């Protein structure tokens, strides 16, 4: 299925675009694997995934059109 991927912070140095639509498996674990294949620079990078603006803690189901954000550690303030 297709999901909307948003990329933030230092991860934009690896995925050179802020937002893209990509094909994904049906949960965040499979998405993570696919992203590691597409963007080898992600290996070893520390980031959280938010699905439809909710931070995920474990593997999370994705739906057609879900928005998934890749969020490295925050550094506001």
């Amino acid at each position, binding site marked *: 299925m297709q999901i909307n991927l948003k990329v*933030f*912070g230092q991860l934009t140095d690896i995925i050179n675009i802020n937002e893209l639509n990509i094909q994904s498996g049906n949960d965040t674990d499979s998405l993570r694997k696919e992203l590691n294949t597409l963007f080898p620079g992600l290996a070893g990078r520390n980031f959280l995934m938010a699905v439809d603006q909710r931070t995920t803690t474990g593997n999370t189901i994705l739906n057609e059109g879900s928005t998934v*954000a890749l*969020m490295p*550690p*925050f*550094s*506001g*303030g």
Partner: protein
Amino acid sequence: MSEKKPKNVFVNGAITSAFIGDSISKHSTQLKIGAHSIFLGQVRSDVIGGKTVTAIEYTTYNEMALEKMHEIRESIFSKYALTCMHIYHSLGRVAAGEISLFVFTSAPHRKAAIDACAEVVELIKAQLPVWGKEVFADESYQWKSNNL
């Protein structure tokens, strides 16, 4: 979760001292306030590997940040006896010496204002989806990391 639309906290570029002064003066009609606590984050001109930070460029995940700020606001108001709270965070480029974060809490008594302000600053640093890019004089950069 409240149905209220999250309030915007983001401003483009630096937060000016005139804006801060105006914000303070607006509270002079709030006669139950006895104490204000203010935190200001100022961009530091760190020297990293021989290069000097000249600015920080901030980006955010806007929708999620406003929702998170709304949650922080609700938790702080339920925990502390505040009269009001105002929060502003810069987006885009803020030069060294300029202000990028303004947290302003007011209460009848000082303890609530002081403790709430300090807690909000910690929550913003830890939980708000904002990223800072430290830009050097030669336009190279490194990504900021927060001490939590």
